[in-house]
C-alpha cells in the first residue's frame, strides 16, 4: 500500500483533483448572487418549450452581445442577473452596454463611437425611429438582395425590439413598483365590480371583454393610461359619468393586457386544469400546454377578484430586487420557487436541471481543457518531456469525460438522441473524434491520436459556440425530424462518419507538416501514420455508407423515395464516393503514401462542405447576403486545407533540401 504513496503520485493525484474541481466549479454557484440564481431557476415557456429563465437570459444575451455574460462597470455580470435587472429595474438595465455592433458602416450611419464595440439601449434609443423606417423598407427586399449593411440594420432593429419586449414580459416596463400597480388594479375592480356582476342590467363579464376589445380596434398600449387619468379628474362625481369612467378603466385594463400579452417573450404559468384530468395527465400537460403570460394572469385577477399567487409572488420578488432589499428578495424568491415546485413539479424540476446544466458550462470548460491538452502534447514533442505529455493526456481524459457528461445531460433534458440540430452535431462530432482518436492511440501509442483529438475537440467546440449564438440550442424539433429512431441511427452514424473524416484529414495534415518541416521523419514513422489514416478511412467508408443508407431508408419511409439527389443527400454521397475513391486509387497505385495523405486532407473539405456548405446553398450564390460570417469561416477553413494540399503536392526537394 505504502509504495503507492510516493511524492510523484501525490503530485499527480492533486493535479488531477485540481482539474476536476476547476471543471465543476459551477456546482458551487460561483460568482452569481443568490437572487439571480433563484430567478434563473424559475420555469417559463418560451419558443414552444419549458425552460429556466437562465436559458432565455443566456440565449438572448448571446444574441445581443455574442457572450453569455456581460461587463457592467468593469464587473462581470451573469445573464440571469442582467435579465433580472431588465425586468425589475429597466432604468438601470438600459445603461448596460450589451448590444454588440461590429460593422463600422452601421456605427457611422448612427454616429456611434468608432472605437466602442458594445452599446447600451440608452445610446441606441434615439436612433430607433430611423432604424424602424429603414428596416421596414429593407424587409420588403428578398433576403438575397439585402446587403450586409442592411442585414446588420435588420438584426439591430430586431434586437432592440426583443429587448423592449423583454422589459415588459412580466410587468409593463413603466410600472415602477409592481405591488402598488396590482393594488391599483385591484382597486379598480373593487370600485367597479358592480358593472361586471350585472346588477344594473349590464351584460355579463365575458361580453364586456369582447366588447371592449372590439371598440378599441387596435392596441394602443400604455400611453392611453394618461388620457384616462385626465378623464377621471374631470368627470368624477355624477353616476353616469362614474359608470362611463368605470367602463373606460375596465376596457383600458383589457386593452393593455392584450398588448402586453403579445409583447411577452416568455410565459410564466400553465392554465388551470379541470378536476377530471388524471394526476399523471396533469403532469405531462404542464409541459405541453400553452402557458399564460403574466399580463393575462394579472387581468384575470382584476376581473375575477381571485388573484393567482404567482402574480403577487413575482411582484414582491421584483419589488424587493428593485429596492435592493436582498434578504426580502431571497425570501420571496424562494417562496416563488416553492410555489412552482408544488404546483408544477415536473416543469420545475426540468427547469432546475437545465439551469444547473447552464451553470456548469461543461462544454466551455472542456474546450479550454482541449486547448491546454493540444498545447501540452505539442510542447512535449518540442522539449521531449514525458511529464508534459502526461499532463496533456490527463487534460484530454478530463475534457472527454466532461463532454460525455454534458452530452448525457443534454439528452436527458431534451429526451432526445444526441444530435438534434447543427449545434449539437458540432458537439457530437468533437466527442466522437476524440473517442476515435483515443482508440487509435491505444493501437499506435505515438501521441498523434491524442494530439489530433484535442485539436478537433477544441475546434468543434469553438464552432458549436458560434452556432449557439443563433438561438436556443435545445429547441423543439420540426415535425419532419420528429423521429427518435432515425435521429439516433441515421444522424448519429453520419455524424460519427464526419468525425472519422476529420480525424483522418487532420492526421494527413500532421503527416504533411512532419514531411516538410520535421527533422526526423523516418520511413517507419511514415508507414505507421499511413497505416493509421488507412484504417480510419476504411472505417469512414463503412460508417458514412451505413449512415447515408439509413438516411435513404428514412426518406423512403417519410417521402416515398429512397434517393432524391437533394443537396444534403448529395453531400453525404460525396463523402462516401471520396472515401471509396481513396481506397480504390490506393489499390490501383495512383495514390502512394503522400498522395493518400493529401487525399485525406481533401476529405476535410468534402466533409465541411457536406456538413455546412449545403445549408448555405439555399441562400443564393449571387447575393451579398451569401457572404455571411459562417460562410467566411467555411471558406477560410477550406483555404487552409488547400494550402496543406498544395504543400503536400510539392516535390519534397523544393522545401527542405538541406535535410534530405
Amino acid at each position, binding site marked *: 500500500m505504502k509504495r503507492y504513496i510516493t511524492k510523484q503520485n501525490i503530485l499527480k493525484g492533486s493535479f488531477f483533483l485540481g482539474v476536476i474541481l476547476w471543471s465543476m466549479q459551477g456546482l458551487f454557484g460561483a460568482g452569481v448572487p443568490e437572487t439571480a440564481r433563484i430567478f434563473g431557476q424559475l420555469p417559463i415557456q418560451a419558443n414552444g418549450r419549458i425552460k429556466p429563465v437562465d436559458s432565455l437570459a443566456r440565449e438572448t444575451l448571446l444574441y445581443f452581445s455574442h457572450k453569455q455574460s456581460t461587463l457592467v462597470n468593469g464587473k462581470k455580470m451573469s445573464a440571469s442577473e442582467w435579465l433580472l435587472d431588465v425586468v425589475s429595474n429597466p432604468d438601470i438595465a438600459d445603461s448596460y452596454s450589451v448590444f454588440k455592433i461590429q460593422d463600422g458602416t452601421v456605427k457611422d450611419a448612427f454616429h456611434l463611437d468608432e472605437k466602442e464595440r458594445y452599446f447600451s439601449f440608452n445610446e441606441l434609443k434615439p436612433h430607433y425611429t430611423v432604424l424602424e423606417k429603414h428596416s421596414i423598407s429593407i424587409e420588403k427586399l428578398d433576403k438575397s438582395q439585402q446587403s450586409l449593411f442592411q442585414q446588420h440594420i435588420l438584426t439591430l432593429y430586431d434586437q432592440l425590439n426583443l429587448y423592449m419586449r423583454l422589459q415588459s414580459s412580466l410587468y409593463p416596463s413603466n410600472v415602477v413598483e409592481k405591488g402598488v400597480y396590482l393594488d391599483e388594479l385591484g382597486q379598480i375592480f373593487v370600485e367597479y365590480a358592480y358593472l361586471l356582476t350585472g346588477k344594473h342590467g349590464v351584460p355579463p363579464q365575458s361580453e364586456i371583454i369582447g366588447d371592449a376589445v372590439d371598440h378599441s380596434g387596435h392596441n394602443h398600449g400604455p400611453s392611453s393610461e394618461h388620457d384616462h387619468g385626465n378623464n377621471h379628474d374631470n368627470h368624477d362625481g355624477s353616476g353616469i359619468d362614474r359608470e362611463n369612467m368605470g367602463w373606460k378603466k375596465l376596457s383600458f385594463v383589457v386593452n393593455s393586457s392584450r398588448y402586453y400579452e403579445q409583447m411577452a417573450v416568455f410565459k410564466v404559468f400553465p392554465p388551470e386544469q379541470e378536476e377530471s384530468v388524471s394526476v399523471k395527465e396533469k403532469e405531462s400537460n404542464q409541459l405541453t400546454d400553452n402557458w399564460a403570460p403574466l399580463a393575462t394572469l394579472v387581468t384575470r385577477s382584476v376581473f375575477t377578484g381571485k388573484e393567482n399567487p404567482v402574480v403577487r409572488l413575482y411582484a414582491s420578488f421584483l419589488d424587493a430586487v428593485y429596492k435592493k432589499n436582498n434578504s426580502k428578495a431571497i425570501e420571496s424568491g424562494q417562496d416563488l420557487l416553492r410555489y412552482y415546485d408544488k404546483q408544477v413539479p415536473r416543469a420545475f424540476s426540468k427547469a432546475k436541471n437545465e439551469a444547473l446544466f447552464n451553470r456548469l458550462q461543461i462544454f466551455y470548460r472542456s474546450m479550454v481543457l482541449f486547448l491546454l491538452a493540444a498545447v501540452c502534447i505539442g510542447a512535449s514533442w518540442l522539449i521531449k518531456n514525458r511529464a508534459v505529455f502526461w499532463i496533456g493526456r490527463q487534460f484530454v481524459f478530463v475534457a472527454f469525460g466532461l463532454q460525455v457528461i454534458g452530452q448525457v445531460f443534454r439528452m436527458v433534458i431534451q429526451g432526445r438522441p444526441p444530435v438534434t440540430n447543427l449545434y449539437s452535431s458540432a458537439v457530437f462530432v468533437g466527442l466522437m473524434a476524440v473517442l476515435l482518436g483515443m482508440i487509435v492511440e491505444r493501437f499506435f501509442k505515438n501521441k498523434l491520436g491524442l494530439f489530433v483529438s484535442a485539436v478537433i475537440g477544441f475546434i468543434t467546440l469553438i464552432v458549436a459556440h458560434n452556432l449557439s449564438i443563433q438561438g436556443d440550442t435545445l429547441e423543439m424539433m420540426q415535425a419532419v425530424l420528429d423521429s427518435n429512431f432515425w435521429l439516433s441511427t441515421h444522424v448519429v452514424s453520419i455524424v460519427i462518419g464526419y468525425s472519422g473524416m476529420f480525424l483522418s484529414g487532420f492526421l494527413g495534415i500532421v503527416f504533411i507538416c512532419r514531411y516538410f518541416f520535421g527533422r526526423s521523419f523516418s520511413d517507419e514513422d511514415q508507414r505507421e501514420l499511413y497505416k493509421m489514416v488507412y484504417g480510419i478511412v476504411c472505417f469512414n467508408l463503412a460508417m458514412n455508407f451505413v449512415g447515408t443508407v439509413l438516411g435513404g431508408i428514412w426518406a423512403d419511409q*417519410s417521402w416515398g423515395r429512397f434517393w432524391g439527389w437533394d443537396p444534403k443527400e448529395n453531400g453525404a454521397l460525396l463523402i462516401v*464516393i471520396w472515401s471509396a475513391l481513396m481506397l480504390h486509387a490506393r489499390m490501383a497505385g495512383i495514390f502512394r503514401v503522400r498522395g493518400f495523405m493529401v487525399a485525406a486532407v481533401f476529405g476535410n473539405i468534402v466533409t465541411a462542405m457536406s456538413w455546412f456548405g449545403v445549408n448555405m446553398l439555399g441562400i443564393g450564390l449571387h447575393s451579398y447576403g451569401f457572404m455571411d460570417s459562417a460562410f467566411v469561416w467555411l471558406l477560410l477553413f477550406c483555404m487552409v486545407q488547400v494550402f496543406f494540399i498544395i504543400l503536400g503536392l510539392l516535390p519534397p526537394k523544393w522545401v527542405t533540401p538541406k535535410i534530405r
Partner: protein
Amino acid sequence: MLNQILSKVMVRLSSLKITVVCLFSLFVLVFVGTLAQVSYGIYQTQQRFFLSAFVWLDTGFGFSIPILPGAELIGSIMIINLSAVIWTKNLLSVKKLGLGLMHVGMIFLLVGAWITSAAGIESQMAIKEGQTASYSESSRVNELVFEASLNDTQNKEYVISQQYLEKNTFVEDTQLPFTIKLLNVWPNAWLRRASDLENSQVKGLGQSISVAPKPLATQDNELNFFTVKIEILNKEGGSEGVWIVSRGLGAKQTVIIDDLSYDMSIRSERYHYPFSITLKDFTHDVYPGTQIPKNFSSLVELNDSETGETRDVLVYMNHPLRYRGHTFFQASYGENNTLSVLQVVKNPGWRIPYIACLMISFGLCFHFLVKLAAFSNKQRKREKGLS
C-alpha cells in the same frame, strides 16, 4: 483460345483505373449537380444530371455539346466494371465474403436505381375534408382531355398524355371519334393577349392569344403552362378547325363533332385507382406559442370496392399508408388546414435498395472488422516481440 480472349477482355474491363475514373466522374457530377440546383431547381437538375447519359450544355449556336458523363452512363460502366471484377477476382468465394457482398450489393443498388428511375411514378392527391378522391395528379406532366356528356348520367373522356403529344404529329385511334393534328407543342409557354388578326384561323379562346416559348419552370411551386396548337379532323378527313389549348387557360373550349359536343382542356395527368380515399380530418399541431410545426396528420377512410375493404387510416409524418403497390405520404396542406395533400408513390423497385444496402453495409462492416482483428493481432504480436 476464346477463353483466353475472354479472360483478357475481362481483366481489361475489371481494371481498377476504370473504377477510379468512374468514381471521380461521379464525384464531379454530384458536386456540379448539387450546385446546379441553385439555378435550375431540383427537378430539372435530376433530369439533366442524374437521369441521363450525358449532361448537355447549350452552346448558343443551335447545338448542344456533352460536358459531363451523366449518372446513367457512369452507372452502366460501373455495372460492367463491377461484374468483371467479381468474375476475375473471384469475389464470390467464401474467403472474400465481405468484399463479395459489397460489390454484388453495389450492382444491385445501381440496377435498383435504374428500375426506380424508369418505372417509379410520383403524383399528388389533394383532398378537402369530407371529400373523396380516387385519382392522383402529376405535378409535372399534363394531359389533353376531351370530355363529352352522353346523357345525364354518363360521361365519356378521351385522354392523351403529354409524352405522346410531344413525340407525335398525329393522334389517331379507332376509339377516338376524330383525328388530332398537332401543329405546335410548347412544354411551357408565355400566353399574351394578341390582336384578332394574328390568329384569325384559330377558333375559340385562342383567337386573342399569342403564344411564345418559355423555359421550363425551375422552382417546385412554379407551373409549366403546357400548350398545344391542334387541328381537329373528322373521320372523313375534313378540318373542324384549329384551337390553342393550354394549361394556362382556365376555361374549357368546345368542339362539336357528329352532333356531340366535346369540352377540351389541358390538366395535370391523372392516375386512377380502383379504390378511393376520403379525408375525414386533417390536423396541424404547432408547439405552444410558436409557428414551429409539431405534427401533421390526415385521418382518411380507405374504401376498396373490389375487395370490399373499408378502414380508417391515420397518415402522418414518417407513417405512410401502403396499399396495393402504392404509398401515400403526408406531403402538404392548405386552405386553412382543411385541405390535405398526399404524395402518392408507385415504385415497383422499392425493395431493391433495401436489399442492396443491407448487403453493402454488412459487407463493409464485416470486411472492416476482419481486417481490424487481423491488424490488432499483428500489433499485439509485434509488441510482445519488442518487450
